[in-house]
């Protein structure tokens, strides 16, 4: 990317300003550069000052409005046409970005080589369609909704990319995702709809589900809202390592670091409430209580204490998950600790 042969860690302000990839990122010109620099900046906070100076310089040499000005104008036009966000994409679960930068680029290669192997092996009899692939990049700050040729509705989250052929082939309907999207797939049993995201393939037959995998993150989530869905992870030669079938209100969590795939229940309806009006436990053991708290608040409770043999009864009003666990711990003489959206009992 840079002509100087330097890596970004050696950059001065001038190097950022003159780097074509950085310029593309500044002007939101393409998805790959945007993702690369966003990830890089997260990993290299020491460079914030130079990067800000570089952005100021680019702004001084162009007529670029600040994001705030553009957001203000966008808000005005939204009011003028009476626009409401089409589908509130759930907030991403707390995900730690811990991969080294450059990951985004590497992953592109993984997807690419994976495709080539499919073609060479003829494993899936991938049909080469003469249509040029379409790349849809959502560079706005709101989810965008659009339809594919088969009638499938896609809600694409900001800073996400979806690649697909303009017309689907005879067999599978393949789309390639980098980021987060929700799919409402039109039913066509002969033509399985397949979403590829790195080493994960979700195959569906008429269903609504969403895939969340911010590139650079180590965890991805596939959530099923209705229908039936098969989620597989494949190795670089296209061999299926794991396969899980999901029913509605179940989701798969995939850890890219250790390639583990596991299934859990989740609530598709709304965000979990922080507090509920009323909740009742009657002689429930730990597993029952943890299950109920997970279902009601979306909070995971883990028991790491040796004390397992207890039953708890209690009634709560206007309580949070923490209130309940705190109460139980007082009664059962236990301690607890909160990390993110999980509570550990010691």
């Amino acid at each position, binding site marked *: 990317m840079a002509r100087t042969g330097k890596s970004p860690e050696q950059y001065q302000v001038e190097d950022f300003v003159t780097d074509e990839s950085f310029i593309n990122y500044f*002007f939101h010109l393409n998805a790959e550069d945007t993702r690369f620099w966003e990830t890089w900046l997260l990993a290299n906070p020491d460079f914030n000052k130079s990067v800000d100076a570089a952005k100021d*310089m680019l702004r001084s*040499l162009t007529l670029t409005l600040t994001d705030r000005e553009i957001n203000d104008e966008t808000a005005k036009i939204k009011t003028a046409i009476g*626009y409401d966000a089409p589908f509130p994409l759930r907030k991403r679960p707390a995900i730690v970005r811990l991969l080294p930068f450059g990951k985004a680029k590497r992953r592109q290669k993984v997807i690419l080589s994976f495709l080539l192997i499919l073609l060479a092996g003829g494993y899936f009899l991938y049909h080469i369609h003469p249509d040029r692939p379409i790349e849809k990049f959502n560079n706005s700050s709101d989810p965008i909704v659009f339809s594919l040729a088969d009638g499938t509705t896609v809600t694409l989250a900001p800073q996400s990319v979806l690649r697909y052929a303009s017309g689907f082939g005879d067999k599978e309907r393949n789309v390639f995702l980098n980021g987060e999207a929700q799919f409402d797939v039109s039913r066509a049993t002969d033509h399985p709809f397949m979403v590829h995201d790195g080493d994960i393939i979700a195959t569906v037959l008429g269903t609504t589900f969403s895939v969340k995998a911010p590139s650079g993150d180590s965890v991805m989530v596939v959530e099923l809202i209705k229908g039936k869905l098969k989620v597989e992870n494949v190795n670089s030669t296209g061999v299926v390592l794991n396969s899980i079938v999901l029913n509605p209100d179940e989701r798969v969590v995939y850890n890219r670091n250790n390639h583990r795939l596991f299934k859990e229940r989740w609530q598709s309806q709304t965000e979990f409430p922080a507090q509920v009006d009323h909740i009742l436990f009657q002689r429930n053991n730990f597993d029952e209580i943890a299950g109920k708290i997970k279902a009601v608040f979306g909070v995971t409770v883990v028991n790491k204490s040796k004390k397992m043999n207890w039953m708890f009864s209690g009634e709560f009003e206007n309580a949070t998950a923490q209130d309940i666990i705190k109460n139980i711990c007082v009664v059962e003489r236990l301690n607890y600790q909160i990390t993110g959206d999980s509570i550990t009992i010691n």
Partner: protein
Amino acid sequence: MTVNNWRSMTEGDKGSFLAIYQTYYQALFCYGFSLSVDRELTKDCIQELFVEIWNSRPSLNKEVKNVRSYLFTWLRRKISRELSRLAKESVFNETTEQSDGIQASYEELLIAFQQSDEKKEQLRSALSKLTKKQLEIIKLKFFENLSYQAIATQKSLTPRTVYNTIYESIRQLRESMKLLLLHLMI
């Protein structure tokens, strides 16, 4: 992509309308500002333009091939109408004459785009230290957004020379802006 958005926009899809708005807003602003040299006027005209598009969507051509130039043309008409209206008013008010029809230079645009007098002065002084050739190449790179390769071809230079020229210009600009800042503080 935008052709599909355009079509579904004319059929009343707000999401597509917004996607078009967000895709072209910055480019339209840039174009509008270089015609009007007026930040607020440009913003207002773009806003009006999109409201008009939305209100007249059923009667618009559904098969617009080049959405970008369609929008640019519409905005140009709007801004020149607005400018001539203002010019007429200023004749009655006997205020300073409107520099209508005269294209502002790149440097003038950049300075006019700055919002504080301090920043304007800082930029004016820094830009004045660059050579004509430096300014021209900077304009091609950042304003026209050409690649080093494209600029090299156009100017019969090597990409390396183009890159070095820009790198050196940025260094000089930063240097003189820093000096000026010191000067202002003393």
